[in-house]
């Protein structure tokens, strides 16, 4: 029996969560509101619900991941779904099977949700055209990581009450970062002003057309910011020389307590992890509970993913 989806079809692919670019503001707020209700549940002693009882969720991770994969794993289980996590980094693909063949194989087992992470931009879009179930993007290449942006938004809302009117700096390897792209779209959509800070070689061409101000001088970029999001240097995606050395990078683009002072007094620090201590961030700052929201990001990540699973798998 076909049932009416709760998430209304405003844009294309209403069934799938492929990126913030495909979301309307109503859909984004809907997810964030839903996620709020799961925060307390996750802190209680009885965490299990049966909203997704009888549903099958497959986590298809073509790239190694710790926090995103375990977060989706836990989110599915807390909603009562049967969760199967597949680490594809060394699986059938090495035997020559294409993404589509793998997808068709899994599709034949009638999953209700596939959560996919893939090293190629657009892989979840391709997958969504070929399977009958909901596809949730858990990070594709350097394009989008929608649930990360949503959990970042929830974390900010939880601390600051609202995103509208805030000034947010995203700093680091913007070129290779899907987190940066998703956050640019979402924070813009929710009414924040976004600065991106990176050395020229790690700044994507035409980034300002995405609605941000671009800075190569970190001090200028941090001026008056409420939130400072630091990004990891993605060495695994860097082909060739982008920077002279890590030491030089830290000098100009590493976040230190001194540089943080250029932002607002009550500015908070975020990082999607995993962190390279001493490369993009001062190690003490990373652990300073008065400033750093890193642990909260991980905590709320589960709530956001529960909300996504619930809304997209109804």
């Amino acid at each position: 029996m076909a049932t009416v989806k709760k998430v209304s079809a405003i844009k294309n692919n209403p069934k799938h969560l492929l990126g913030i670019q495909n979301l309307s503001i109503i859909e984004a707020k809907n997810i964030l509101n839903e996620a709020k209700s799961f925060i307390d549940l996750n802190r209680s002693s009885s965490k299990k619900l049966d909203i997704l009882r009888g549903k099958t969720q497959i986590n298809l991770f073509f790239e190694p991941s710790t926090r995103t994969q375990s977060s989706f794993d836990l989110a599915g289980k807390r909603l009562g779904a049967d969760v199967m996590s597949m680490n594809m980094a060394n699986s059938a693909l090495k035997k020559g099977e294409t993404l589509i063949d793998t997808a068709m194989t899994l599709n034949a087992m009638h999953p209700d949700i596939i959560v996919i992470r893939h090293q190629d931009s657009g892989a979840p879009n391709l997958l969504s055209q070929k399977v009958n179930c909901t596809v949730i993007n858990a990070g594709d290449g350097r394009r989008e990581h929608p649930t990360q942006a949503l959990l970042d938004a929830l974390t900010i809302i939880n601390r600051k009450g609202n995103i509208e009117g805030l000034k947010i700096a995203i700093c680091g390897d913007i070129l290779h970062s899907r987190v940066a792209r998703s956050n640019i779209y979402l924070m813009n959509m929710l009414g924040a002003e976004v600065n991106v800070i990176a050395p020229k070689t790690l700044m994507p061409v035409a980034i300002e057309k995405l609605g941000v101000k671009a800075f190569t001088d970190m001090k200028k970029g941090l001026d008056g910011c409420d939130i400072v999001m630091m990004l990891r240097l993605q060495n695994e995606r860097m082909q060739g020389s982008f920077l002279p050395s890590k030491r030089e990078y830290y000098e100009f683009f590493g976040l230190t307590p001194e540089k943080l002072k250029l932002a607002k007094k009550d500015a908070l620090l975020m990082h999607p992890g995993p962190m390279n201590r001493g490369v993009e961030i001062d190690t003490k700052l990373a652990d300073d509970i008065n400033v750093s929201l890193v642990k909260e990001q991980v905590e709320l990540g589960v709530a956001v993913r529960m909300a996504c699973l619930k809304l997209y798998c109804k």
Partner: protein
Amino acid sequence: MEKILSNVRIIDPSQKMDEIGNIIIDDKGKIKSIGKNTKASDASKTAEKIDLEGNIAIPGIVDMKAFVGEPGFEYKENFRTLSQAALAGGVTSIVTMPNTKPVIDNVSMVDFIIRRGRDKAKVNLYPCAAITRQLEGQQMSEFGLLKERGIIGFSDVNKTIQNTELMSRIMNYASDLDTLIMQHAEDYELSKNSCINEGEVATRLGLQGVSDIAERIIIERDLSLLSEFPCRYHINQISSKNSLKVIEKNKSNGIKFSTGVSINNLSLNENDIGEFRTFLKLSPPLRTEEDRLSLIDGVKKDLIDVIVSDHTPEDEESKRLPFAQAATGSIGVETLLPLSLELYHNKSLTLEKIIKCLTINPSKILKINKGTLKKGSEADICIFDLEKPWVVKAEDLKSKSKNTAIENRKLQGKVKMTFLNGELVYSN
């Protein structure tokens, strides 16, 4: 038997002809008489009469860049399917690319390809051989021997000679043999891992982009070399405004060379890629609207001489992959003329200019006796209805592969008949 094609608008830039008249084809398949002064009564009484009802006749199109799958990639295209597609598009002469398996870089392969083409193809085939053995960019092929066996020109297809010293020697050696060298312009270091034009679209899609500098830098290098070692040099396909600037400067300095462009780069831009449409993954890539418009301007100003289909059949499996992994290229030989006519209907180019770039210009570069309807030449003729509206449907195209970049595009203008050596080989 003689044929008389009557009531036809003849456009033949090779003799600056655009007039309504008749065409008489003699019994050997050659043009006996053509033009407004040719009367029906000039034909013999037994001549077969074909009334073309005011449609347009042009010389059979000469496509300077197409891939035929034989040998090695018969599942993508073969001589039979390629010629069917070509004739349905009014294309009667095709320059075929050597990136087959095995590569066409030696005499025995040339013999094979010419024999096979003669048996299976119904169009005039002009095979290219590789500039370098195995397309590896290391050692030049036997230009002299290959040319003797019937090779029309040399191209490493979508590969570029990176080694500057080798390139200078290729030009130096080729100049002596009067050999045509066709270069694809792309600096590999700058284009590494790229699959799309660098810019906002690449940033949004999260794909590795390539700047037009990668193209320009090779053109600049080659044209510098060319001033030292003048040879018959042709740039296969350019894609950007900045490349045109270099070409304009060098042409005004008196450097002699020719330039091609793909109909795709004249008709589409990077935005058409949408959400990862791999059929629009092309080499050189689709660039900005500004680039597209400047390429049209380049055709207008005769900075670009030739429009090609860059017909690149790919099977579904090679395209049904994430964008970065998908194969490059689109089919196009059948839609080359209709898509070019779009540039006439939207007032970008004159009909005369379009036809010129599809017929006499490539023939002159190749030094072949085609692309003209002058008296005495072989009657390769394309008849088309300039106004007929139609919609491109991949399944209706004759190519073995269906990877068209313009699926569902609404076009105006369709081929009605194609004559090859005076024989009607296609009619619709």
